């Protein structure tokens, strides 16, 4: 029977359209436990490829007859081998082209809405839960919290007939490698960073100060910076077109950020409290919150974007509704999940102190993202 290859984009479409797929993940158990292709509508079976070298007869019995079957491995080789073996047993199966490596790097662009002179797009990195943004207005583009796959942003801007003028990071990321500096270098754009997070960076950047305005495209769409510390000491939010609030890792749809360095948690908790309960509380409740991460696929809405009205979040988000300051302090400082060693390496990469090879960069980013505090 036939073996087909699904690209990460085709697989992403199945996730976004909530289709039912049966995933046969043939990586070893630890890798599968650590991360997988997430969807509430997928079913999973994890059997390492090396347990199938003598045949797949036993496995065939565990596979559904009425669902698409996608065989997944780390890079692609093992999934192809297992798919071929299943095909020999008479099954129609697919394998994921490029494996989890390619899945981790796939970005799904989705339109958030129109803005004067153009539109705003969200890029969902489904494999890691990162969100990046590109706003296009009158042929000029701004990119916010760009991830490592800078080609995607460059190609997208070109397709829109836009020139990337500004690249902004809400903070110095520790969970993924920023594409900001490289994107700015490749396109001649300015790279903006909050100076309080950039004390040790080895490259030139434009300092993103509180109340800074960055103009592009139509006058009224300009980006306004709002200093909002707590996740990091420099964390800065952006308001665009008095319509959108880019909240970085401070506020998420279903949770709130946490101090990013365990050692600084006690120092930064007051900043985080102040940012959420004073600064954000004083902003227009009509703003649409656009975070830098999502944690669960359930946060992806019917229009395929991750977003929420600030007013709604003040009603529903547990982290915004903790009146007791002491309880809040405990929630965001206690039981902080462990920070993988790679976080320090990622920080150093984002500061320009080290420049790992691409393969090493991929490896550093593997694993779940742990930026948020959930109840």
């Amino acid at each position, binding site marked *: 029977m036939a073996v087909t290859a699904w690209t990460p984009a085709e697989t992403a479409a199945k996730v976004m359209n909530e289709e039912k797929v049966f995933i046969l993940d043939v990586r*070893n158990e630890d890798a599968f436990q650590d991360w997988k292709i997430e969807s509430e509508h997928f079913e999973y079976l994890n059997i390492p*490829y*090396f347990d199938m070298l003598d045949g797949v007869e036993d496995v065939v019995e565990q596979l559904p007859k009425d669902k698409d079957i996608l065989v997944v491995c780390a890079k692609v080789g093992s999934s192809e081998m297992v798919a071929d073996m299943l095909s020999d047993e008479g099954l129609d199966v697919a394998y994921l082209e490029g494996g989890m490596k390619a899945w981790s790097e796939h970005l799904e662009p989705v339109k958030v809405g129109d803005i004067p002179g153009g539109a705003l797009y969200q890029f969902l990195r489904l494999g890691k839960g990162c969100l990046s943004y590109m706003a296009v207005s009158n042929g000029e583009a701004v990119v916010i919290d760009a991830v490592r796959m800078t080609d995607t942003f460059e190609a997208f801007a070109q397709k829109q007939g836009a020139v990337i003028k500004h690249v902004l990071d809400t903070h110095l990321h520790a969970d993924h490698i920023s594409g900001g500096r490289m994107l700015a270098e490749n396109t001649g754009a300015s790279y903006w960073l909050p100076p309080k997070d950039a004390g040790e960076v080895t490259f030139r950047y434009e300092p993103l100060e509180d109340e800074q305005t960055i103009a592009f495209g139509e006058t009224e769409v300009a980006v306004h910076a709002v200093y909002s510390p707590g996740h990091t000491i420099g964390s800065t939010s952006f308001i665009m077109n008095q319509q959108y609030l880019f909240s970085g890792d401070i506020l998420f749809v279903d949770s709130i950020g946490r101090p990013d360095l365990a050692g600084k948690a006690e120092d930064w908790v007051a900043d985080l409290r102040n940012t959420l309960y004073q600064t954000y509380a004083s902003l227009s409740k009509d703003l649409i919150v656009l975070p830098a991460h999502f944690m669960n696929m359930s946060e992806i809405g019917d229009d395929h974007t991750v977003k929420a009205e600030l007013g709604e979040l003040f009603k529903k988000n547990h982290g915004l509704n903790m009146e007791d300051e002491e309880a809040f302090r405990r929630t965001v400082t206690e039981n902080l999940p462990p920070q993988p060693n790679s976080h320090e390496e990622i920080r150093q990469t984002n500061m320009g102190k080290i420049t790992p090879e691409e393969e090493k960069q991929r490896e550093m980013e593997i694993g779940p993202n742990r930026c948020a505090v959930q109840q």
Partner: protein
Amino acid sequence: MEAAQMIDAKGMACPMPIVKTKKAMDKLDSGDVLELRATDQGAKADVAAWSKSTGHELLEQKEEGGVLTFWIKKK
């Protein structure tokens, strides 16, 4: 370390290092040690997990100049 056989899987991508190791291992006697050389970084986790799954013993491993070497004792 003395090995009954050496498998050179340098430059090979997953799943070949394990496929070749398994084939060679099937022909060895219990207690024999097989040496595997590979450059695929994924082999680190996979050799350990495969050994655990099959009951063979991963005696030792080292990494030198990008080459991973494993010594596995057949159960």
